[in-house]
């Protein structure tokens, strides 16, 4: 008897995890506020910057807020869905990974489902609200394709950041736990993506923005939404490159994860 929907067992696992966390209602609410506050601080940083300067790399406050709105909404969805993968070393130590391996299901979705943290949802909601408000304040001419773009850009960003989470966590299969290394790409990538490419130096911009792909997540989609030409001279259609870049990143992440799992050494006990 196979499920018609192959996602069903994973959704059941997720639901069970949410139910078990709901037992600790007070700590859940506390965490929800704490997590949301972190995202509020991310945006406050931008507001503080604009007290010092009226334009940042050629962009005004509401424009940068659209950009960071896309970046942080995408990041927060990824963090909600797959952010736990950065605990991989912990899952290995506690034997959770072994417990997943002896079941007839894919390991990664099981791991994410059994340790799903619903309290991170506050971040997604807050970032999406900032994006909506900033887009409204920017006087975007709402054509149908701009509506499409404002929805797909954060989702493509979510897929892209999810891939980054998985790729950096997977390095653990070869090296020892490298949380700092991972964080410089995940959280570092989010911060990079929240600001216009124009504020970064050439080498850094080429590496993070184009070679690693972070520039396609929010910078180019924002230009397309606002109807602005790239001050750096890149073509306008790059605003639509997000889903393609995200798909490539996701495929790479999947391949790397499977290779890593073959190198899995277990724990010594």
């Amino acid at each position, binding site marked *: *008897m196979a499920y018609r929907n192959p996602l069903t067992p994973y959704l059941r696992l997720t639901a069970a995890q949410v139910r078990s966390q709901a037992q600790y209602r007070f700590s859940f609410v506390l965490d929800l506020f704490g997590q949301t506050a972190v995202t509020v601080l991310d945006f406050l940083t931008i507001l503080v910057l604009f007290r010092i300067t009226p334009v940042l790399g050629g962009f005004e406050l509401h424009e940068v807020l659209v950009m960071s709105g896309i970046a942080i909404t995408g990041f927060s969805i990824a963090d909600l869905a797959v952010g736990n993968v950065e605990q991989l070393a912990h899952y290995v130590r506690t034997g959770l990974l*072994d417990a997943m391996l002896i079941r007839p299901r894919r390991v990664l979705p099981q791991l994410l489902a059994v340790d799903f943290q619903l309290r991170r949802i506050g971040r997604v909601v807050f970032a999406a609200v900032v994006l909506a408000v900033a887009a409204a304040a920017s006087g975007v001419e709402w054509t149908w394709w701009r509506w499409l773009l404002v929805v797909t850009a954060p989702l493509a960003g979510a897929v892209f950041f999810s891939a980054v989470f998985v790729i950096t966590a997977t390095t653990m299969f070869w090296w020892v736990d490298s949380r700092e290394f991972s964080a410089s790409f995940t959280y570092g990538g989010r911060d990079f993506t929240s600001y216009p490419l124009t504020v970064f130096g050439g080498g850094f911009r080429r590496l993070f923005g184009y070679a690693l792909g972070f520039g396609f997540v929010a910078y180019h989609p924002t230009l397309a939404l606002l109807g602005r030409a790239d001050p750096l001279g890149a073509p306008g259609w790059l605003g639509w490159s997000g889903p393609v870049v995200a798909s490539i990143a996701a495929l790479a992440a999947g391949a790397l994860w499977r290779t890593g799992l073959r190198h899995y050494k277990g724990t010594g006990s």
Partner: protein
Amino acid sequence: MNAVITTRELRKEFTVRVKTGRFSRARRTVTAVDGVDLTIEAGEMVGYIGPNGAGKSTTLKMLTGILNPTSGHVRVCGLEPVPQRLRLTRNLGVVFGQRSALWWDLPLRESFRLLRHVFDVPRADHAARLAQCRDLLDLDGFLDTPVRQLSLGQRMRGELTAALLHGPRVLFLDEPTIGLDVVSKQAVRGFLSDLGAAGDTTLVLTTHDLADIERLCPRLIVIDHGHVVHDGSVERLHHRYGSHRQVVIDLEADWDPGHAPEGVTAKVDPDDARRVRFHLTPGGPSAGELVARLALRAPLRDMSIVEPDIEDVVARLYQAAPADSAG
């Protein structure tokens, strides 16, 4: 021939980095499993024993698809464990004594319900197997208790149930009685013994508690430093390492060496000249024959049979140099 598990020249090496100085580290290769050949038939109950670090858990992890072998051949239920993990795990039940497959914060009953979805078990089959385990393992008192509040013994009964709800063909147990109190150990052994007697399930059990093995497993595989050093019955192990059942006889008078039946040697107790011991060797007289013959020659007062201590045998085995075919 209906082998459920076969391995040939199975090896697993781990590369570990060891500190050699303040800043220097060297890579060293640890061979955890070193050329293991196993053939286990359907319905067998096998004890896989060895000292700490012998390679028991590593072998089990390669058989269950958790770890990729470094080299060698391995088939379980006709499948290659790592590449065909998704298909294989439907046929396996696995219990790690020191790990849990249950949901910590949920009632035990909920874990069982989730596993039904994870393993796609038809509702009726699941209910029937759960009813059987509830009965045999006496789960009813704590089915609605969150797993984190269970005692170790209760939890282990839950783990066993969890491993069986999808009706596995092979059950792997890694140290299932570790840390359990005497009563829980008995419950677990009794349950496994019934399961094995039913004959549908192949059972492979690692342990360092030899009482588990004596009670459950007709076949014993001993591993040390990654090598199999014994594979056969408990009796063969005793035979090979010269440990025998003894008959201890108390006589009415001091022992007279002339009374010894031919083919056996008597050892007189150094503290009591009226007590003698006879080692029973295969091919020699049985305990009954021995006593009958002795009774014709000297008046007996009492007798007892002393079983060889498997712990001693295995301790000797571990000390012995790498196996030869001395048996």
